[in-house]
């Protein structure tokens, strides 16, 4: 069974640009989550999508947005990139969005802002 896949592995952008990160969940999983792992800030919840709808978002500005497609894959968009957005972005998926469902993670996209 294929795990959660993320692309690209690395992404280099400059300040003010826009970045798009992609995630394919495990087959059969309907919920997708995005987390940011930034140096010194730890792992922080960004967004949760379930059945195509945004269900919850963390304490991040509106320039962080995303969507979930009918095949349950997801993309994360970050507009007006800032230096502080440099981080590893991790996508996770679960069978459904109920509390307690284990989340399975991909290997992440490392976003570097120059």
């Amino acid at each position, binding site marked *: 069974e294929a795990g*959660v896949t*993320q692309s690209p592995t690395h992404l280099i952008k400059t300040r003010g640009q826009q970045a798009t990160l992609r995630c394919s969940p495990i087959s059969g999983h309907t*919920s997708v*989550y995005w*987390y940011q792992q930034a140096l010194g800030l*730890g*792992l*922080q*919840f960004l967004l*949760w999508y379930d059945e195509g709808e945004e*269900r*919850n978002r*963390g304490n991040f500005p509106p320039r962080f947005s995303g969507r979930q497609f009918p095949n349950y894959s997801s993309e994360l968009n970050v507009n007006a990139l800032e230096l502080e957005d440099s981080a590893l972005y*991790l996508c*996770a998926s*679960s069978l459904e*969005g*109920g*509390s*307690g*469902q*284990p*989340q*399975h*993670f*991909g*290997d*992440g996209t490392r976003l570097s802002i120059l």
Partner: protein
Amino acid sequence: AQSVTQLDSQVPVFEEAPVELRCNYSSSVSVYLFWYVQYPNQGLQLLLKYLSGSTLVKGINGFEAEFNKSQTSFHLRKPSVHISDTAEYFCAVSGAWDGGATNKLIFGTGTLLAVQP
């Protein structure tokens, strides 16, 4: 606010010795607890989970953890570590504190387990 505390940022241990990585959480509602491991340049791998039932939970790679509600702890243990266990370990909690409609994970700051030969 709900939080997870991993008191030890780094735990050095010799190969074949036992290890315990500590995790405490704060929450006034029922929680679900998880331990994840992160190897260099990789994502997070689920080690084990506590949802309900027996307080002693066994996971992959010989790890186990014990849920202690009175002490709000979920410490991770392994009786004999290997060099290959060197990695960052994260404790995480989820629960129905946002009105029930959430599964977001709140993570601790991580503990680097450094196994020495």
